[in-house]
């Protein structure tokens, strides 16, 4: 018994000594390294929101933002460019970050999680203490036989910030009376659930403005979609029978693509003058190239947004599995605030705050008509999943005034958020 007691006391003393030495070591390390370096990868809505929030703490952290582009082209409101409601310059921003934030413009190719280093195409590298990844979405390949996102012959999908809207509109411009447009809408989850239907509306708005007679067929890999009842009503009211939606169970899933025609899963051939495939999606390419994710989307701790298995790497926005939250710019911004708040809490060794998130998605059906869906989100009781507190949307039979008011509110949100993020 005495031997056991002595051995226990000796173990405690050894452990205390190790802890003390560790603390001295850590203190020296912190002193030597000064402030921890936080690198934000991607300056889209998720990344830029982290930068905006963390820029209040630059006395505590060194903040670096990395993006491959000097100019940010936003996905929100890009459908409005297609619909000719706004010019492309209105969704293009040159970020004005605070002077004490380093902005690195370079193409990144690999994240070395073990050595905490980002490697760039030009062979240079950047160290980090904490990394926040917000790379947006990537695309699944071979979902539709014969279709490739990289084939420049195809109509560009325009589902990210790439500079191809002009090509898309050029394709629309070439359409003549009685043309047929085919849109293939992907299965969940994908970026901005109502966007394929808003895009159909904006294409219709554009062609109607040019007095071109058209038919839009939306072939869907789903049996329903968000705000469906409002979209169907708006389409009827604004465009008569010119927009038709085909559900998955009625042959909506496209399985093969050829020039000017597609085939659905029943083998039926459908010809089109303008074939717009919205590809199936997954997390951003850099995440897979760096072997940081085993599934289509990053698994994160929803309280901190720390990547599963990588304690100093965080992910936010469209690349993460955020439970019930849709992949939207509004969601990404709401998540980014919690991530940033709790990262600062971690650095200050304070306890984490319990999160709450908000999302509001506006969709336009024509020039001055919009409607929305809104929801708050919390963590579930086991704190491992984000759950909706119940979503609510605009009225199906909304009056003109309501639709017009919501279109103005949508512009208001976009103006506020882009001013906050990009100056």
């Amino acid at each position, binding site marked *: 018994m005495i031997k056991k007691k002595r051995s226990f006391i000796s173990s405690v003393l050894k452990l205390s000594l190790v802890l003390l030495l560790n603390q001295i070591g850590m203190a020296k390390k912190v002193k030597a390294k000064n402030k921890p370096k936080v690198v934000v990868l991607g300056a889209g809505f998720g990344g830029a929101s982290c930068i905006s929030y963390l820029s209040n703490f630059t006395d505590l952290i060194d903040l670096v933002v990395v993006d491959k582009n000097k100019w940010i082209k936003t996905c929100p409101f890009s459908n409005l460019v297609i619909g000719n409601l706004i010019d492309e310059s209105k969704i293009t921003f040159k970020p004005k970050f605070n002077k004490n934030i380093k902005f690195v413009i370079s193409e990144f190719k690999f994240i070395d999680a073990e050595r905490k280093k980002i490697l760039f195409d030009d062979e240079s590298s950047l160290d980090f203490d904490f990394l926040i990844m917000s790379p947006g979405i990537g695309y699944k390949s071979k979902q539709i036989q014969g279709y490739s996102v990289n084939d420049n012959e195809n109509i560009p999908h325009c589902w990210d910030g790439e500079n191809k809207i002009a090509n898309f509109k050029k394709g629309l411009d070439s359409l003549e009376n009685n043309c047929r447009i085919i849109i293939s809408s992907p299965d969940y989850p994908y970026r901005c659930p109502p966007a394929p239907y808003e895009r159909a509306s904006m294409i219709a708005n554009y062609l109607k403005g040019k007095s071109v007679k058209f038919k839009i067929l939306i072939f869907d890999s789903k049996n329903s979609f968000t705000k469906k009842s409002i979209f169907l009503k708006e389409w009827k009211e604004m465009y008569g029978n010119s927009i038709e939606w085909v559900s998955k169970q009625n042959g909506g899933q496209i399985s093969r693509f050829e020039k000017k025609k597609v085939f659905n899963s029943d083998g039926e051939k459908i010809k089109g003058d303008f074939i717009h495939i919205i590809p199936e999606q997954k997390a951003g390419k850099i995440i897979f190239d760096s072997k940081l994710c085993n599934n289509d989307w990053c698994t994160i701790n929803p309280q901190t947004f720390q990547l599963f298995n990588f304690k100093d790497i965080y992910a936010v926005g469209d690349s993460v599995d955020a439970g019930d939250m849709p992949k939207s710019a509004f969601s990404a911004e709401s998540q980014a605030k919690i991530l940033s708040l709790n990262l600062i809490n971690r650095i200050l060794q304070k306890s984490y705050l*319990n*999160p709450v*998130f908000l999302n509001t998605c506006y969709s336009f059906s024509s020039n001055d008509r919009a409607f929305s869906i809104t929801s708050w989100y919390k963590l579930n009781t086991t704190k491992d999943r984000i759950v909706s507190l119940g979503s609510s949307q605009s009225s199906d039979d909304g009056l003109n005034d309501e639709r017009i008011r919501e279109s103005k509110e949508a512009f208001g*949100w976009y103006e506020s958020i882009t001013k906050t993020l990009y100056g």
Partner: protein
Amino acid sequence: MKIFFILMLLFCFKYSISDEIKPIVIEENCKSCHGKDYSGNTFIKSIKDLDKEIFIKKMKDYKKNNNNSVMSRIVKVLSVNDIKEIAEIIYD
């Protein structure tokens, strides 16, 4: 039995978004539309220059209102206590 019902009622009224959630976490979401300094813009109302009591009244009105506006839908989930605590953060 009466006590059970009273406790149930109290539980129902107590439930709000802010159970275990700090008001600052809710309030951060207001900035998405109203701007970092709440000044709004051409299409979104400023809440910066409102009096605290007027803000609380307007929020309570949104909560009561059944016009299904975006604000009304957002505020519905908040308790009166949430509203007061958010006002404290914005105006103090």
